[in-house]
């Protein structure tokens, strides 16, 4: 996996790890913070277990969207691995409504570490798949244009074949 195409974020929360874990693992907590700002989150389905799904509805003005998460691996209270994507009302994963090239599925790994009563959350996310059309397009662009279109295409062209 190309390091440039992995999103890594770290945040320290002033709360014990059990509470942070509960914020991710209990529907009544999640509903309060998971949705985008200014949006009322409705939980359609929530099963916090390996293989279970979290299907939710984001009631955005002009842009109602569904999201879906499938939990792959859960190690209480330190690690959560899941696949996420945008979804339809039936819970089928679909393309992001705002961008055709936003990956269909992203695998996210959250690691929770407690230090002196605070909790450090490390988040790592990377795309799972790319369509053949996307790979062909970016490869084509790369061979066609030696310069001028910035490094983004180069990065994309490098990672797309690896993640397909």
């Amino acid at each position, binding site marked *: 996996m190309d390091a*440039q*195409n992995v*999103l890594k*974020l770290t*945040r320290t*929360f*002033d*709360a014990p790890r059990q*509470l*942070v874990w509960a*914020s991710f693992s209990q529907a009544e*907590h999640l509903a*309060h*913070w*998971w949705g*985008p*700002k*200014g949006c009322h989150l409705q939980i359609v389905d929530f099963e916090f277990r390996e293989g279970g799904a979290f299907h939710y509805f984001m009631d955005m*003005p*002009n*842009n109602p969207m569904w999201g879906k998460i499938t939990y792959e691996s859960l190690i209480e209270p330190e690690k959560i691995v899941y696949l996420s994507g945008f979804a339809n009302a039936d819970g089928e994963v679909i393309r992001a*409504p*705002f*961008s*055709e*090239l*936003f*990956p269909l599925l*992203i695998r996210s790994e959250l690691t929770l570490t407690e230090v002196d009563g605070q909790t450090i*959350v490390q*988040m790592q*996310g990377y*795309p799972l798949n790319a369509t053949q*059309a996307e790979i062909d*397009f970016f490869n*084509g*662009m790369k061979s*066609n*244009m030696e310069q001028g*279109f*910035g490094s*983004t*295409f180069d990065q*994309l062209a490098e990672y797309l074949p690896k993640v397909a």
Partner: protein
Amino acid sequence: MRNQIVTRIFVTEQLLIDMRRDVFQAIADPTRREIIQMVAHERLHLNAIADQFSISRPAISKHIKILWECGLLDIQQQGRERYCKAKVEPLTEVSDWVEQFRAIWEQKFDALDDYLKKIQKKK
């Protein structure tokens, strides 16, 4: 005042989403992707582009119009002919999904932070 700000944020987001959707719709079609690649390096006139495809000239014109409307083509009239050249800058901006994903997560972490503070205060 607060409502005004909130409204403005939503309007800005909506504009961004509309713009992105346009660009991605433009390249969703294989013929249009091929056209962009053809004129990435050289300025070609419409007929020269159409000659490379088996589909009809009006169909190609329609694709070119969509690409132009989405800001991906620069079209210049020279004599009788109209010449096209790719403008790919709008694509580089939106193709960087990592930045979009980062923004989503920064916001989630902010919200979690606020929420944790709130529920711990209550205790």
